[in-house]
């Protein structure tokens, strides 16, 4: 009988106990997988930020406006490749509780600056040439079941039209897919020109600018040059890298990282105890037979391996099941939240971390019982009764 076979047989000698222990491990890894998926969603904006992209906002606060003339002036700054601008519309479709970003943009430059938004050339052309065109991210289109060609009325909770209505009519001309699953597509975009001409207030102002530099090396110089250019004007600016902006934005929600680590920590501390405890019980119950095994020539190392192998097998079975369920749940969560928290993606990174955790948990819980088993004294053990 090989060592592995022996480990396997040992594991299922008390099936109920094994099943319960595996179940506890399963729960902990499922919690880890789901929360990591959630964290992925929250961090998507930071992780997919372009290294050569900068965000220019009003210095007072990013919810305030700046003149559209800033776009041309910024285009003249050395080291700048593309400049585009955007406005927060505060839009919703039928139900204000279903969140997505609705943004008024300069069509061509906006699509140029975000190459991670994939779109067929014909749809791109339609968006640029049709004043009332709307492009929807895949997440939004899926959420509402929109198809290209649909007429979509969007309401704003900020703006009103000059005619007093708070609804704008658009035609959906295309659907944007993300280059990877982590690219957030919970947004719609439409032409700034249409928005500017119809809104009752706001005039020739824009919300923020996005700047693409020639290379990330130019970032620092461009950031400084832009802010200096607009200093001492009624609309001072603050330029940050896209990543820094996304990070600060997420910070506003609170210390989510701490909450997630605390829950995962509690879940793992719990199973560490449960599994460790089970392994101790197991070794104690088998004192006699381990003594017998030693008598018939099993080395201490093999005994050690036998116990560690058993705890590793436990954590790997439970952990793999937990990951599988977390992976399945990631799709359900994406559907349930409609992408409101960002794209819920189960990345390979989560699986790699889980394997590390399984190994650590298996070794840690098996270590003390294995040492104990190794040190069992044949004479005392067999003479115990």
């Amino acid at each position, binding site marked *: 009988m090989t060592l592995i076979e022996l480990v396997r047989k040992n594991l299922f000698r008390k099936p109920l106990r094994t099943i319960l222990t595996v179940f506890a491990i399963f729960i902990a890894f499922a919690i880890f997988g789901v929360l990591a998926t959630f964290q992925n969603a929250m961090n998507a904006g930071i992780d997919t930020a372009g290294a050569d992209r900068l965000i220019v906002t009003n210095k*007072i606060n990013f*919810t305030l406006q700046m003149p559209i003339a800033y776009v041309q002036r910024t285009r003249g700054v050395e080291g700048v490749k593309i400049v585009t601008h955007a406005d927060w519309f505060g839009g919703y479709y039928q139900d204000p509780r279903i969140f997505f970003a609705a943004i008024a943009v300069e069509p061509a430059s906006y699509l140029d600056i975000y190459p991670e938004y994939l779109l067929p050339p014909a749809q791109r052309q339609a968006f640029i040439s049709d004043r009332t065109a709307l492009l929807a991210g895949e997440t939004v289109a899926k959420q509402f079941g929109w198809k290209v060609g649909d007429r979509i009325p969007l309401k704003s909770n900020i703006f009103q039209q000059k005619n007093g209505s708070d609804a704008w009519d658009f035609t959906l001309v295309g659907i944007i897919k993300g280059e990877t699953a982590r690219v957030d597509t919970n947004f719609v975009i439409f032409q700034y020109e249409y928005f500017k001409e119809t809104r009752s207030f706001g005039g020739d102002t824009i919300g923020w600018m996005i700047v693409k530099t020639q290379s990330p090396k130019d970032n620092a110089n461009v950031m400084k040059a832009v802010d200096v250019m607009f200093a001492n004007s009624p609309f001072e600016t603050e330029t940050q890298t896209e990543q820094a902006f996304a990070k600060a934005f997420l*910070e506003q929600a609170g210390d989510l990282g701490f909450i997630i680590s605390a*829950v995962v920590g509690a879940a793992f501390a*719990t199973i560490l105890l449960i599994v460790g405890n*089970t392994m101790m*019980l197991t070794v104690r119950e088998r004192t006699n037979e381990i003594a017998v095994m030693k008598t018939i020539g099993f080395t201490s190392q093999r005994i050690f391996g036998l116990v560690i192998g058993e705890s590793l097998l436990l954590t790997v079975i439970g952990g793999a099941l937990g990951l599988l369920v977390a992976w399945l749940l990631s799709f359900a969560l994406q559907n349930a939240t409609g992408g409101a928290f960002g794209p819920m993606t189960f990345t390979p990174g989560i699986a790699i971390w889980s394997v590390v955790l399984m190994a650590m948990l298996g070794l840690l819980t098996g270590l003390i019982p294995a040492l104990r088993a190794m040190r069992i004294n044949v004479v005392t053990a067999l003479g115990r009764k």
Partner: protein
Amino acid sequence: MGRTFTQIAAVTMMNLRSIPDRLWTSLSTVIAVAMVTAVLLGFLALANGFQSTVQGSGSPDVAVMLRKGSGSELNSNLTREQSLLVEEAPGLARGADGKALVSPELYVVVDGIKKSSRTKANLPLRGLGVRANQVRSGIKISAGRMFTPGTNELVVGRAVSRQFEGFELGRKIRLAAQNWTVVGEFEAAGSVFESEIWADVAVLQGLYQRGSSVQSVRARLDSPASLEKLKAYSEADPRLKLDVQAERSFYAEQGKGMSDIILYLGWPLAIAMSFGALAGALNTMYASVDARMREIATLRAIGFGGTPAFVGTMVESLLLSAIGGVVGALATYLLFDGISAATLGSNFTQVVFALKMTPQLVVQGVVLALVIGFVGGVFPAWRAARVPLLAAFKEQ
């Protein structure tokens, strides 16, 4: 009957006295249950703290008026004509001079630096009308004084100066491209107002090129019932047609969304963890029954019934999990109660609140712990009650 009771008491005591023999196993159950309780109570305290801050904010006899459909003060916009019309409305409380207690207000967002993370966060800067003091009740200037209308003076909520940099009394601070002086700090019974910065509405109108327009109008009602009169008045005038709400229900609605999200996260996580802890509890109790197999069988042989064995095991399991529940609740209380946290509220600005444990929450945590103890005990107890007599003579 009396005999059964004596037997139950005797077996239960034997069970409990033998816990130290299984110290580590028992301890692991206690800690596992404590962890579950702590996670649940942590989330509940978070949701409860946020909700009581936001919902405690409104007064039932203050009306908030916004542009129809705007949903929040930040998105609302009202003309001077509209705020003047509101002053003529019926059902409003009036001051000594006979004028209606009405405060036209601006609500703008400025950047503050969070002390905890040193990152920028949105803070609300509210411009108050001259009669704002009489409209709101329960506001107390706890240090310094109120701002002087027409000047660049600010008063800040207690939570703002606690959580954000540079708002100490007497400090000069640059907000909205202007230099301001912090002249006072106010308390508002722990409500969202404590997360706000207040200045004179006229000063802000000039600064933000708002002319004479405002974002909301607050009015003190002569009684909560007068809200309907005010609503009817607003609906009847095509120049008004505002969203009229009692301040209390306005904030109650805002508090609900966020605390619901916290609860939707907290309960499923705690329940999932409970299943893990349950598996641990079952293992512990099965081990306990197995260890006492011979003892139980012997008792059966000398005439004890199955019930005492059942009850003894149940009591042991419930006791362990109850200790776990209490330890978890105590730990949450010591670690988290009163801790200050901040998140984005529905006005897209920071709401500072304190995690808050209440006896009701502790009860929920302990109930969850006892459910784990019950389910974790009942199956092993069943096994204990059915130990065959022969087990007494089996080699162990």
